[in-house]
């Protein structure tokens, strides 16, 4: 929430001056008689950071004072027509000190660049007549951004203030060849003809089963581009990543398993997702007990045989998928570890994977061979299989 926006300039006689501020009196006290609340900050304390020396001009400068954070982008224009041959101004935004402010950085940058251009074109800010309209403009910006997170305010025939607040997301996790993307939205519905070509090629193959490598093969798309496209979808939260599903895989519960029992909404979601058909009726209490029975050291295949009668109406693949995505279970990976990887009588490429850091998923995807084949190659070697 923006607490205030103000416009300050350097006055050749009076120094840094606040010319316009919304709300009134939020930065410098309004002249009496006034019923405005006292200013949020003491402008004198920070005026040298709002209207700074050359070094800080054309840079994003923030300063905290009195529990508020001021974001500004001071601009300095040099021209003979100005007193002292320069004109310094700043449009600053005031936020609560502990508020997330990264999205507002672009706001002050944009305001600064736009008004800099206007000033260069027509002396918009240095001319006292045109400058008077600044108050209405910043008032509108503050109102619109706080209420609608965007604004589109015409200044004159050729200039408009166009701002939209975008949330900042974390960088996407690294995508590996053996990761399986699962869509969290209906990508086909989002996509249109203007989307990137690789994206259009790969989206039909994102089915929660295919690995990234497999998707690039099926879509006949470049692997590096496929990875990039998937990173993009991850960044916007349209995808999540899971492990390759296999009946030879081992699954076990995580400490988050109890969250499933406490969350009735997730339970309903679970039932609807894991049942083999929509008409089947399954009880959550059974599904929960089944999750709890997953254990280290037992392959899914063996587990299915052991629990066969209780799996009626349950799609095992979806059962595992749901558990993984929700974090209530995890896949136990297998890692071949050689005490001395260098001296192994195996292909050189395979030897590089035996130091302990590579799972079978990685090895099989990178070498494009099956697990069985890898095990055959390792036969007779001093290699231990570690489950993690």
């Amino acid at each position, binding site marked *: 929430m923006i607490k205030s926006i103000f416009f300050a300039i350097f006055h050749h006689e009076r120094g840094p001056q606040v010319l316009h501020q919304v709300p009134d009196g939020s930065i410098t006290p309004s002249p009496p008689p006034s019923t405005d609340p006292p200013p949020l900050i003491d402008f004198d*304390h920070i005026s*040298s*950071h709002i209207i*700074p*020396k050359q*070094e*800080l001009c054309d840079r*994003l*400068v*923030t*300063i*905290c*004072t009195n529990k508020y954070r001021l974001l500004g982008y001071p601009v300095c224009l040099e021209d003979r027509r100005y007193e002292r041959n320069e004109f310094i101004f700043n449009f600053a935004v005031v936020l609560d000190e*502990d508020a997330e*402010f*990264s999205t507002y950085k672009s706001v002050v940058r944009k305001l600064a660049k736009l008004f800099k251009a206007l000033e260069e074109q027509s002396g918009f800010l240095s001319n006292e007549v045109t400058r008077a309209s600044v108050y209405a403009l910043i008032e509108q910006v503050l109102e619109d951004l706080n209420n609608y997170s965007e604004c589109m305010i015409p200044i004159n025939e050729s200039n408009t203030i166009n701002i939209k607040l975008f949330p*900042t*997301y*974390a*960088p*996407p*996790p*690294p995508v590996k060849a053996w*990761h399986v993307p699962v869509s969290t939205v209906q990508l086909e519905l989002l996509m249109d003809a203007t989307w990137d070509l690789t994206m259009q090629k790969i989206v039909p193959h994102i089915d929660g089963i295919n690995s990234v490598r497999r998707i690039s093969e099926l879509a006949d798309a470049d692997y590096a581009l496929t990875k990039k496209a998937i990173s993009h979808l991850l960044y916007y939260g349209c995808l*999540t*990543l*899971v*492990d390759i599903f296999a009946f030879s895989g081992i699954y*076990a*519960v*995580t*400490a*988050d*398993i*109890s969250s499933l*029992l406490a969350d009735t909404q997730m339970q309903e979601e679970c039932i609807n997702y894991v049942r083999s058909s929509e008409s089947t009726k399954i*009880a*959550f*209490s*059974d599904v*929960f*007990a089944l999750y*709890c029975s997953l*254990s*280290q*050291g*037992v392959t899914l295949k063996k587990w299915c045989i052991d629990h066969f009668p209780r799996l009626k109406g349950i799609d095992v693949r979806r059962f595992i998928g749901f558990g*993984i995505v929700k*974090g209530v279970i995890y896949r*136990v990976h297998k890692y071949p*570890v050689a*005490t001395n990887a260098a001296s192994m009588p195996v292909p050189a490429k395979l030897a590089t994977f035996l*130091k*302990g*850091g590579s799972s079978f998923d990685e090895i099989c995807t990178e070498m494009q061979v099956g697990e069985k084949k890898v095990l055959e190659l390792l036969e007779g070697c001093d*290699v*231990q299989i*570690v*489950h*993690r």
Partner: protein
Amino acid sequence: MNELACFVRRLAASAFIHHPSKVLTQATLNTPHCIAMDSLYNNHRRYHHQQHRHHSLTPNSCLLAILLITRSSVGPTLTFHYPPRPRLDSPQSLASRRGLADNSSSSSSSSSGDEDDVVSESSKKKAEVKAGSAGVDTILGFRAEFLAGMLAPKQQGRFEMSVDDVVFLGQPVHVRPDGTWRQEAEVGESEEASDATPFEPSEQETAAAAKTRGVKPGHSEQQQQQEGDADADDERDDDGDTVKGSGTMNMFHVVFVLNPPELEYHFRTAEMFDYVVKRFSRALKYEQARDGYVWRETEKISRLKEQAAQKDTSVGDLWRQILDQSNLAYAISCVYRDISQSKIAHVLLNNQLAVSLQIPIVSEIAVLPSLTDPQVPGLPLTTANSFGDEETEGDAMLAKHFTLLFLEDVESILKDIQAEATDSSASLAHFVKSCKPTHSFLQISQHCGIPLHEMQILARHLVHWRKARAIPPIHQRDTYIVSPNADLKRLPSLIPQYAKTFPTLPALPKMLSLLSGKPKPFATFIPSKDHRGAYLEILTWLIRYGLVTQLRNFAWVKIPIAIKMAVHKERQMQMSPQPPVPIEDDVDEKLDEESYILEPSRASGIESAWLEMCTRHQPQDVKTLFERMLKYLNGQHALEKIAVREGISRKEVRKVLNAMDGVLVYAKHW
């Protein structure tokens, strides 16, 4: 109490002082901050799905440089900065920009940073500019004079500003209107003083020790030369007359320069400010008030810079001289070096006041990061955290059924303790020697005679200073698995290390592969009784390196439909004479499906009736024990705890659980 003692106690509550700069010099504890660390940890659990919280699992100080700004009547000056040439693209910041998921072992590889900037400086001497009067021409792209002006605020209190992605964080210290630097008994810090009261005796000891040392001759020669000046300053201070001509300082400001990733901005700046900036500034303020330390050091550094300018000394040489001769400059360089590597910084200010600073790190996690979460391989994974456990006395104590797992060799910890001969170090050494990861505090206490309460304080101390981790005692009958968060990429370096420690026992990959199958009690892997000790040592080693974690059992009570029907019928029979009045929680009965009782110890009316029906046909002893065990059957408590906590034998616990098997659902995790 003398002033120093007062102060040390106050500061100890916030910055943990010891004397001189070794870790384990005093047995006092910094309780509030251990809790802070703990609540931090809890936050991670709570906000598991909030990404920006996640990032904070990985230690990252984002520290680029430390600047010392002083202001005298001639204006503000950048007196000293470290490193001499701060880089905007420091290794840590690069790592954090690359995305933390790939930044695999920032906790383990913390030593890979710039060990010694001065040395590396000298190697590129040819490229060096000669030191001007300001030392270095520009710092972080700014002229020194400009930086000094920008960072000399008129305001009191926390200072925070940023230019593009670089943040300047500090706490300026202004001279008071009466010319002194601090009030006799400053208000506002009283609450910290009261926090420290439980540990008052030992802190007084240390304060006294610090006092004697400070006065005793025994500083370096150079320090003794200065003694005259210092005394003179003291006298002037006593007279309340500090005006010393045009050069007198009226403000100093230690500014920490950071470049936090955008999404971690608030978190990183807050932790740096709370744990480092505030405490370091406060300690400097104390020494400045006591004998004009900061100003004396400032003058010393300025003199060296002037001389260097005349002699055309290179920056590298000048910085070496400054670090050599100025205690404050050296302290700043130590704080930079250690904090930027997420280590603990120990400095001895004015050869007198020992201060230790650290940004607490997350030492274990309960939630396994998913593929899309930032990875933190190697961090121990367990829900067995001893803090905030119901049996602990508040949050201040480690649970008595826990024990310590040392993260270093006991010998090296003992050496650290012995480097310091204080009254408390003897009992600390005794404790460290007596502590065994296979015995709980309670057992150790009975064995070695240290009162439990004292032992828990000592243990807390060791945990806070990263010497140990609190764990449930290691037991051969418990089950252990390869931790899903183990950092197997470290194996190439761990394998030889392990082989050196256990030369005659199965190799590390073999041990890990043993623990990879279907989970079994550890005892089943021990070939004979004679091997037990050695195998438990291996297990301890594996847990210390986060390779292995305990797999514990959790249980919930699930009420079968038959029990529900029985209760329902019984209730109807009881009610039949009267008109049908709805029973309080009739709606929850749902006779067509089984129900889990989420909190059996706080069961509702109908749940109690179901529980009663479940145990109705059990013998009385089972019934009684089951009732006692109910509070553990909510999926939050490991069943392994019951025996220790309730003082029931493991066998009996098993008997009750077996008897009630029909209504229990088990899950195994960490």
